[in-house]
């Protein structure tokens, strides 16, 4: 039987606010345990939550970015359960009425093997605001568990998709797209190591061609795309094998173990909590007006989709190039700055996606850390465009710029890479070459086309690579009467 995997994602994105979602405590990561836990964070008797407006702005931004319904009225609810890192014994979340309703994102699924790359729309079911829990710390004190409540109350936007994905590759493409989008609109720092972007993946399988969804298992807290890919692939295989062996799938929450590459059930549905959701009486319903949306819209950057289309029409880039350049906001920004500084768009696109990206990848650097700024790259591209240097020479200049040897013109001078475009000088070189290679000239005249290229090579060599190749061709043709 042929099986089909059905995948939906729930992603917790930590919002980039200075203070917590319901208190004034700082959200900075990595502070000494419990130094960022105010009376609200530790849930002292009598404390009350007050909603951070900045967190709401983040939610609106996300809603606008995925073209979603933004609820004029949404409600905070209490999700009740006991856990040591949950100081109130309930999490303030949104349940029946979330702030962001249905929306969608378009993903680019890369080519794998003989399958070509393709686009797909993934529907967003909802996104809701909630507070993060603290952390249990094991081993800090012998024989005891500690609780660090610095993270308790950090604002999260939980983004839930429809079960629209049909492969690990699609799920990863969606996660990457979402990861980029939340950074693009500035609501999340995207730091997966620090837990700013965590994915829960719901996986089920069904016979291909059937409608009914299989029983799902939820893989919790995946914090890398690599693990996500591995976990989904393992889970899918496991479910198919279980069913093919005559077993059944029990609804469960599972954890992925990166060391073994396996998923393992954490708790079954029977053990699941009844969270006893009810509207939080300490908070008023969240009301968002059209004016609020307009105000936030004005703060929104151009979105990747719009920018991609603009790159195609304004700069004549291919859809693929435009998509690649808009894969991240900093890459797109770097490209735009390069063009704004006077470079031509197509070579700029090629260099940004080529040399710059290759260097950054090799050295595991971000664009912000690039030793060659967009302005410097533009000055290099201008020297190619105005024939000061050849493309080949440009590669050497770029290498030197990357290594911090100075600005473009200084490097060209220092390395003597300036292209010779003086016709007199080129004619003199070619005369010498023709005189010294009479045999080749004869061969050319006898009809051997290849001899021409050999003569060009000789001329370039004689000029130490500095002659303008186009001019060499031209002059040589004239002299040979070709």
């Amino acid at each position, binding site marked *: 039987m042929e099986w089909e995997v059905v995948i939906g994602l729930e992603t917790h994105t930590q919002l980039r606010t200075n203070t917590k979602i319901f208190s004034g405590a700082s959200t900075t990561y990595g502070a000494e345990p419990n130094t960022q836990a105010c*009376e609200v964070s*530790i*849930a*002292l*008797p*009598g*404390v*009350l*939550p*007050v*909603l951070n407006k900045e967190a709401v702005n983040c939610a609106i931004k996300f809603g606008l970015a995925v073209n979603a319904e933004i609820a004029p009225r949404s409600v905070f609810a*209490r999700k*009740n359960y*006991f856990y*040591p890192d949950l*100081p*109130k*014994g*309930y999490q303030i979340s949104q349940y029946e009425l979330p702030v962001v309703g249905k929306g969608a994102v378009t993903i680019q699924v890369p080519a794998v093997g003989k399958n070509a790359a393709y686009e797909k729309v993934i529907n967003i079911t909802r996104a809701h605001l909630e507070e993060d829990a603290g952390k249990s710390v094991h081993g800090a004190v012998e024989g005891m568990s500690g*609780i660090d409540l610095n993270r308790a109350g950090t604002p999260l936007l939980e983004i839930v998709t429809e079960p629209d994905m049909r492969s690990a590759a699609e799920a990863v493409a969606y996660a990457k797209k979402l990861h980029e989008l939340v950074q693009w609109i500035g609501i999340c720092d995207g730091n997966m190591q620090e837990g700013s972007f965590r994915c829960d993946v719901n996986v089920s399988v069904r016979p291909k061609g059937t409608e009914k969804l299989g029983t799902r298992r939820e893989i919790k807290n995946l914090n890398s795309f690599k693990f996500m890919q591995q976990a989904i692939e393992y889970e899918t295989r496991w479910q198919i094998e279980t069913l093919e062996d005559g077993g059944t799938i029990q609804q469960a929450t599972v954890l992925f173990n990166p060391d073994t590459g396996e998923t393992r059930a954490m708790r079954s549905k029977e053990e699941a909590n*009844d969270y*006893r*959701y*009810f509207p939080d*009486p*300490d*908070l*008023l319903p969240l009301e968002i007006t059209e004016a609020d949306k307009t105000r936030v819209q004005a703060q929104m950057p151009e979105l990747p989709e719009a920018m991609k289309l603009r790159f195609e029409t304004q700069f004549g880039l291919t859809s693929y190039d435009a998509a690649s350049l808009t894969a991240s906001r900093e890459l797109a920004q770097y490209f735009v700055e390069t063009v704004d500084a006077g470079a031509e768009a197509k070579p700029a696109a090629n260099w940004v996606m080529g040399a710059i990206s290759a260097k950054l990848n090799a050295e595991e650097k971000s664009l912000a850390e690039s030793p060659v700024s967009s302005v410097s790259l533009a000055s290099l591209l201008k020297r190619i465009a105005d024939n000061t240097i050849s493309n080949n020479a440009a590669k050497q200049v770029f290498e030197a710029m990357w290594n911090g040897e100075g600005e473009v013109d200084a490097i060209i001078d220092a390395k003597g890479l300036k292209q010779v475009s003086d016709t007199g000088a080129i004619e003199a070189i070619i005369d010498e070459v023709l005189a010294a290679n009479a045999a080749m000239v004869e061969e050319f005249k006898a009809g051997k086309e290849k001899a021409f290229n050999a003569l060009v090579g000789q001329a370039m060599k004689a000029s130490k690579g500095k002659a303008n190749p186009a001019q060499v061709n031209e002059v040589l043709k004239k002299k040979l009467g070709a």
Partner: protein
Amino acid sequence: MINSSLKTLAQMLANKEISSVELTQTFLNRIDAYNPEINAYISLDHDRTLAQAKAADVRIAAGNATALTGIPIAQKDIFCAQGWKTTCGSKMLENFIAPYDAHVITQFDHAGAVNLGKTNMDEFAMGSSNETSYFGGVKNPWDFSRVPGGSSGGSAAAVAARLCAAATGTDTGGSIRQPASLCGFTGLKPTYGVVSRYGMIAFASSLDQAGPMAKSAEDCALMMNVMAGFDERDSTSLNREKEDYTRDLNKPLQGLRVGLPKEFFDIGIDPSTKDPIEKAIQKYQELGAELIEISLPHSSLSIPVYYVLAPAEASSNLSRYDGVRYGHRASEYTDLMDMYCKSRAEGFGAEVKRRILIGTYVLSAGYYDAYYLKAQQIRRLIAQDFEEAFKKCDVIMGPTAPSTAFKAGQKADDPVAMYLEDLYTIAVNLAGLPGMSVPAGFATSADGKPLPVGLQIIGNYFDEARMLNVAHQYQQVTDWHAQAPTLDKPEGSA
């Protein structure tokens, strides 16, 4: 002096007839003498209290006293007060010293009032007799064999026994008004959202509201001037302009339309209570009020609705007492679940556990719609009843409690009988309206003791100033509010 109004005390302080330290010491002496018997206070800290009194004297001398500077106020032990043990009447918080001040405490501090101590209360404000307190029952100063009402029973006994100049209380279903009725003084539960709940330990968040408990409407007005006001730390606090609650005290009542809900006089009311209430209403007629019969058709549903919603909220509000960060933790346990179970089993009393169980049940999957949602719908109907009624009248009057103070132990084992104590008060909380209890006479008990009866005055939203006016005018022509119990001389005193 112990019977003096807050206004008189402020004048005496201003005129240097007495210092705040002397006044405070007077009350502390009475507390030392009577509290061992009455048990109105859970926590006392004479040094801290007297230090505040000294500071108040400095402020008075400097000439920037407020109406309450130097006045000793008893604080219900539900308000977090920095450095004070704040127990909420529970073993769970027996050793909890609050590291911060509730908004109400801050307001009194800013006014220069003196915190006389933390008063006894039903555990987590759940009770109508003060008998659920982990720190023992409180005696009704009118008859030591009887309860003071609850949950603000300690504050009530302290006001009635003149163990403070005035006190604070909180009212979720009647916890200010019912004890005010049973102990014979004036208590006001303001409109929901008028007094910040920040730092007030939550029982049922959508119903809890703090208010004054004092010897007269005028005293309550002066207390309200300190307690009320917007606080951005409470999202349900209403951002309104500051009011002077004394502004209308002296307005005549000519033409006042008094609504009398027929349901309040039909059901459950004890004849001994009914009589003084009817006389009080007659008095209002004499003062120029017009009586209008009204109906609150859904009021009979108040108690069932309340005992779904309040426990639901409470079950969640009390989840934080898990033994992890503060409060009681069992001394021995095998694992996390065992620690939770033992800590909570040991830390909470029977009534609190009962309500946590009810609340957990009504919020459970499969029951939520039938209980919680249904109760919310009826809650809206109850509020609409009042909305309709206030189209016809300015204030609503009726009894505060179905009967006078009952004997300690009489209802302690019958939760439903206890819940019926709040028959007339609960609807007001469900609607979020302001309500008062005003002394309206006495009924004589079987053993011949006079027991106070309270008249309830219910106002429209934000009509506290008018209600205080209505109560004050009555107190100008009656002296029920001025009567104080004769306390037996404490043992060992001369």
